[in-house]
């Protein structure tokens, strides 16, 4: 499943390394990545390829824990969610 991982928080060193290191450990491939400072906050978006046999619930909660450790908010959601909301026909069959 293609998913979008968002990371928001105070900018500091090690956020990208922390998140990408975790994903590498889980063998989750990063397909696209962009980051900026939005309203004063470090904001990063990654498009990732989550293996079909991965436990999404566990992954989601581990990422939240990682966020706490890094002092940022991390969320992962199915990519269809964003396509549905922002594209005229996106995400829907």
């Amino acid at each position: 499943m293609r998913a979008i991982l968002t990371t928001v928080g105070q900018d500091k060193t090690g956020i990208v390394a922390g998140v990408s290191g975790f994903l590498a450990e889980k063998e989750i491939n990063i397909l696209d990545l962009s980051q900026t400072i939005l309203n004063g906050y470090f904001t990063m978006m990654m498009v990732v390829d989550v293996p079909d046999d991965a436990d999404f619930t566990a992954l989601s909660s581990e990422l939240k824990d990682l966020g706490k450790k890094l002092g940022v908010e991390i969320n992962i959601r199915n990519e269809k969610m964003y396509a549905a909301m922002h594209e005229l026909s996106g995400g829907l069959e």
Partner: protein
Amino acid sequence: MDLRRIMETVNMIDNENLDLRTTTMGISLLDCIDSYSDKACQKIYDKITTKAEKLVKVAKDLETEYGIPIANKRITVTPISLIAAASGDSDYVKYAVTLDKAAKAVGVDLIGGFSALVHKGYQNGDRVLIKSIPEALKATERVCSSVNVGSTRSGINMDAVKEMGQIVIENEKINPLNNGNLVIFCNAVEDNPFMAGGFHGVGESDVALNVGVSGPGVVKKALEKVKGESMDVVAETIKQTAFKVTRMGQLVGQEASKRLGVDFGIVDLSLAPTPAQGDSVANILEEIGLESVGTHGTTAALAMLNDAVKKGGIMACSHVGGLSGAFIPESEDAGMIAAAEKGILTVDKLEAMTAVCSVGLDMIAVPGDTPAETISAMIADEAAIGMINNKTTAVRVIPVPGKGVGDSIEFGGLFGYAPIMPVHKESSAAMINRGGRIPAPVHSFKN
């Protein structure tokens, strides 16, 4: 995809209370009819617990995968007055208890369909069911009841209007909160995913999944960015926001029905508020430019809001249904509560508002000494608005024993609390006691 758009979605969910209000599985019980009520109840229990076995699990999986809360998981069934009529039982409490047991077994919040459709007249099952409502609501926790007393096509059954006023008072004597689980409709819809008025109509599939969206907080935030702009801009902003909100419902409903192996019914476009700060329809109207909801201009602002939500939502999903409009419950909306407490929002103004939006006088607390005929007259007024305007209207009114204007009643959870609103003291009894039927209006003859 553009990072700003991604973050707009994240903000809606994390900071603006965007959620799916309900995923509701409608289940037909027509194949459970049996002349032996014990046998019928066993079939009902078996069918519900089989068909809805995975409903809660699938909804929870989708909550995680899409990262959007699904506030309620619910079930609606065929009106029990039709299912139980074959049994010849003298009360249907047993059926309500079965529904309650099945709802608990599969873990849903509420189950709707302890209902009767009497807009033109009663069949025997309707009579028994309506008489059973007070005991059924007393004996159960999750069962919701509704009665349709009028329609544009058939007029208003004033005998039923009279009887429902009495039923509300009977409920009040047992436990006033039970009236929160009873809705009296005109033009009830068959695919309503919201409670307490949901039931699964006879024209529906055997099993169908319906979804109700929410999102008042999201609309309010969007309007904060267009302060001082013309009403055209306000309407357009609401329309675009409603599109986005509704798309969540379409996506989750489609995916849930696929995983459950059932038909995807409809998305209900209602803007459903909760008592949470920032999740209020009243606050949207105030953002449009009213000092308080209930003042002059409220009806116009609400009419525009309701229409713009529909225009955006209809484009966003394949099948729209249910109630689809802005809900204006007194107790479930922090802005409505505040305006009612100050006496700015009155029952009369609410009644005017119900002419331009869904759904009716909803969760209205009234003094404990309100006579049954006055409750019936409130039902009749709402039914008349629905009948003439070709729309659904409803009454969910809660008389609170021993309390009057200035007091309030606490419902808990999503239902919030409600300050008691004054009702007119002058009697409507002579009109209500006439009974009979109000004939269908002239514009119903379209064939």
